[in-house]
């Protein structure tokens, strides 16, 4: 009984109620219909839930379902081709199959690589390239392992595809440079988009347009005309299942192919320029003075841009990057060299313009110029010709390249006036060519020197301009340093009587879809205020150079009249010693320069030739110009060899 009392909380009424079946049934029904009520409430909650999902939040779930279902696959546009002015293809795109791996989707990369190697030939070079691409790639990228698979290889892999999740065969666009090393610096190359490119594209807002693109221009025209060549990305809306397999295509927005570029470069002339430089390192720039079109722009040695497209392998990269010949340096664009005597016609023109000299003014050249250097001593600037050139007027100062004439002129001219005059020819500033990365060179002036030697490492004595600086600069040495492009541009401006055109490499842009072509119109950047008489005097002197002066032998028997100027740029200061080429190590030898235009009466081509460590400009550089002129004006194409006799060559 105590036990029962303890559990009194349990229902006890039943003792009495059990006797009443009617009440029993009533109470049961009460619970039953209470249950029914609970059911209705629960179903009401469910109905509320359905209403929320299917009416209130419907749009959101609709979107999510669509996102599940539809994948947008970007389709990269086909990159425009690049051809020379006559339509010869220099860079083109084509489609081919690649075997690609997505490392993030592969559990055991090494095993997969081995197993693929059993199916399809994978060379050690492919592997090296793949690993290099892995290091540089964007996250979760699909990376090429083998490129340009043939049909049999594609079939063999397709059968075994199920064994390799994360490995796919894709049709990819490739870039090919059929002419190899020719014009490599002009064309530049494309390469796989790397992290830096992504950052840049993100900043410029172009990243979406590159969703379907793997490559981007890295240098040269490929870089400078990236926007033109690339085109606009297309999209393929694909319905996919839960495993990401495409079920069907919904809508397609075709990519807009990139535009084609027709260059101003004449492949034949370009080839000749490169051949003419031979084994030497150097640069050639040929410009049409009448419109600024660049006919040839050679930089030797070159490189094969095809090596870079799918990622260059380490051996080739090291070879190109560490070679003392600097094959990756675009010399005409970025190489700055003292112009030497090629600056003389411009200095002379400056003297005529300012009235410091007349063309006929002559003096007796002792073969040196003495500059008092304090405490009664003098510093002697030598002319190359011992004993001097005799009586020298302006014509002779150019045709025989008399240094003393210019020493004296420099000593009487303020450097800032010289700089002001020369800057009109774009010396010391960019010419505005349509290639990125143009160097400005150095056009010395007081302000320049002060700026150059600013900073705590230098003292005031370093920053001050000395008369000696002017004397060196007065023969194109000293601080003067210009690119071959600047010289060619300056000569073209001179040949065109002071009307300067912007140098450019693209002649025509051809719409990738419609084929409509748009001519790039020549752009006059400057009209120099030069007196015709002064111009005529300088031009006559330059004709004399080729007729009876320093380049006389090179232009012997030329059926056209040409004008030129030789130059030799010192690499190594001889400190007043006489320069004997055979006694100087080859890499310390002077650079040979030659600038020219032809025909003298109505110029159609202006060139600047630089041969690094070539010695005298007349012997090393002028034959290149002669070959180009012969080819361009006469259609004759043979490299002109310098006369082999060992007679003295002089500036």
């Amino acid at each position: 009984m105590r036990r029962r009392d303890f559990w009194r909380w349990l229902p006890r009424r039943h003792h009495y109620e059990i006797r009443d079946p009617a009440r029993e049934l009533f109470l049961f029904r009460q619970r039953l219909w209470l249950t029914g009520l609970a059911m209705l409430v629960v179903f009401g909650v469910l109905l509320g839930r359905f209403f929320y999902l299917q009416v209130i939040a419907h749009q959101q779930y609709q979107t999510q379902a669509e996102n599940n279902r539809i994948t947008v696959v970007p389709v990269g546009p086909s990159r425009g081709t690049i051809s020379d002015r006559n339509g010869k293809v220099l860079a083109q795109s084509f489609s081919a199959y690649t075997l690609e791996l997505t490392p993030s989707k592969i559990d055991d990369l090494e095993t997969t690589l081995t197993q693929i190697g059993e199916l399809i030939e994978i060379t050690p070079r492919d592997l090296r390239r793949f690993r290099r691409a892995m290091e540089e790639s964007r996250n979760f990228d699909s990376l090429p392992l083998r490129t340009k698979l043939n049909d049999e290889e594609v079939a063999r892999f397709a059968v075994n595809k199920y064994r390799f999740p994360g490995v796919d065969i894709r049709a990819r666009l490739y870039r090919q440079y059929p002419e190899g090393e020719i014009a490599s610096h002009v064309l530049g190359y494309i390469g796989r988009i790397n992290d830096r490119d992504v950052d840049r594209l993100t900043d410029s807002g172009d990243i979406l347009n590159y969703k379907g693109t793997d490559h981007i221009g890295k240098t040269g025209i490929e870089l400078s005309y990236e926007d033109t060549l690339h085109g606009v990305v297309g999209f393929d809306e694909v319905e996919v299942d839960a495993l990401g397999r495409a079920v069907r295509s919904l809508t397609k927005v075709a990519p807009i192919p990139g535009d084609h570029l027709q260059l101003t470069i004449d492949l034949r002339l370009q080839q000749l320029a490169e051949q003419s430089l031979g084994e030497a390192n150097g640069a050639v720039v040929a410009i049409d003075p009448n419109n600024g079109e660049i006919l040839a722009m050679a930089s030797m040695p070159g490189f094969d841009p095809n090596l870079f497209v799918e990622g260059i392998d380490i051996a080739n990269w090291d070879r190109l990057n560490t070679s003392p010949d600097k094959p990756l340096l675009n010399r005409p664009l970025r190489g700055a060299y003292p112009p030497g005597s090629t600056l003389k016609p411009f200095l002379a023109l400056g003297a005529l313009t300012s009235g410091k000299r007349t063309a006929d003014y002559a003096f007796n050249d002792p073969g040196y110029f003495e500059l008092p250097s304090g405490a009664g001593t003098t510093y002697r600037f030598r002319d190359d010709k011992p004993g001097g050139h005799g009586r020298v007027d302006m014509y002779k100062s150019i045709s025989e390249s008399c240094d003393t004439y210019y020493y004296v002129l420099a000593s009487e001219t303020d450097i800032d006036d010289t700089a002001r005059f020369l800057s009109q020819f774009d010396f010391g500033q960019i010419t505005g060519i349509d290639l990125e990365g143009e160097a400005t060179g150095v056009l010395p002036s007081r302000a320049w020197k002060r700026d150059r030697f600013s900073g705590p490492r230098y003292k005031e004595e370093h920053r001050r301009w000395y008369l000696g600086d002017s004397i060196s600069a007065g023969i194109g040495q000293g601080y003067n340093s210009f690119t071959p492009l600047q010289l060619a541009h300056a000569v073209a401006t001179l040949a065109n009587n002071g009307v300067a055109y912007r140098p450019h490499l693209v002649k025509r842009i051809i719409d990738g879809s419609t084929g409509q072509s748009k001519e790039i119109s020549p752009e006059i950047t400057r009209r120099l205020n030069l007196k015709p008489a002064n111009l005529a005097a300088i031009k006559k002197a330059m004709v004399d150079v080729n007729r009876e002066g320093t380049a006389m032998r090179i232009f012997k028997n030329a059926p056209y009249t040409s004008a030129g100027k030789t130059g030799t740029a010192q690499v190594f200061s001889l400190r007043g010693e006489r320069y004997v080429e055979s006694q100087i190590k080859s890499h310390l030898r002077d650079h040979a320069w030659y600038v020219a235009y032809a025909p003298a009466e109505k110029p159609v081509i202006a060139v600047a030739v630089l041969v690094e460590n070539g010695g005298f400009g007349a012997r090393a550089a002028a034959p290149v110009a002669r070959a180009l002129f012969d080819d361009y004006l006469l259609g004759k194409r043979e490299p002109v060899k310098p006369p082999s006799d060992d007679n003295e060559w002089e500036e």
Partner: protein
Amino acid sequence: MHLRDHLSAAWLRLTRHIDGPLMAIVLLLLAVGAVVLFSALAPDTDRFIQQIKSVGIALVVMWIVANIAPHRLAQIALPLYLLGVLMLIGVALFGVTVNGSQRWLALGGFRFQPSELLKLAVPLLLAWYFQKAEARITFSNFLVAMLLIAIPTWLIKRQPDLGTAMLVAASGFYVLYLARLSWKVIVVLTASAVPLVWLFAHDYQKQRVLSFLDPAADPLRSGYHTLQATIAIGSGGVTGKGWMNGTQTHLDFLPERHTDFIFAVYGEEFGLVGNIVLLALYTALLVRALMIASHASSLFDRLLAGTITLMIFTYAAVNMGMVSGILPVVGVPLPFVSYGGTALLSLFICIGILMSIQTHRKLVAT
């Protein structure tokens, strides 16, 4: 007698124990189920045909059960329960393990899940027990009933199959509830059940509950089912995407779409309108079942019919609640719609019992 009279006599004999309204509602539910299942199984028609066969067998079984008088069912309650518990012990000792759970008993090449049997055996036994006790819930009665529920529940829970264990326990407690267990005890039991279940739950079971609370936290793993199912239902909108047009369904985003998650297929393809139709059919079924329970002639009949009603309701509500993301994922099929022979069979046995209770009452009354 004319042939027509023979036929009509045969028809009468055949349908004597079939409850017309209940049969009509069940057939409508089956029709809806067939339509959805066809879409969920597409393009596999073999399994659809298999399910049609299962429905046929289940209907025959239902007819047989409907023809068995309820008091005969009371007689087999205890043996059935003992057999079920014995088989559960058998599962624990030599059961087949599938997906980490030991739930199946292999009997001569045929795999059988004894826990399914207990869903019916437990309410049957308790109804019989309280009938014997004349509905007196004394302390000893209560204790015995608790023990009878606890034994199979524990055995199923340790397979582990928490969902079925809870359903079996629930079926037992429904009987207790209908037998008018004191509200105070009900409150105490309910309050203690939640932490108890959590305490005994396996990690993966807890994970399911946690992922239910925030499905987006882990969208590709435990929350994936719920997320994709709610997307399917929500994207169906008011009128649905149309039969065979559900993208979530036909592009494989919905897992378990022909079994536990078939309601998502339905919601996606038939929308809110379809859902309301289904809820209405279930409501009609439950109302009819409640009426049968209400008018049942004996305490055993009443308790059994009421419990069966509550169980069918539980399956439907838990399944729809889980698929629409307001309940954690428990392996409960949607009655009359989900694919699967075993679940269908036990469901139709229940319907058969309801019909038996209803039709035998009439016979007694006349």
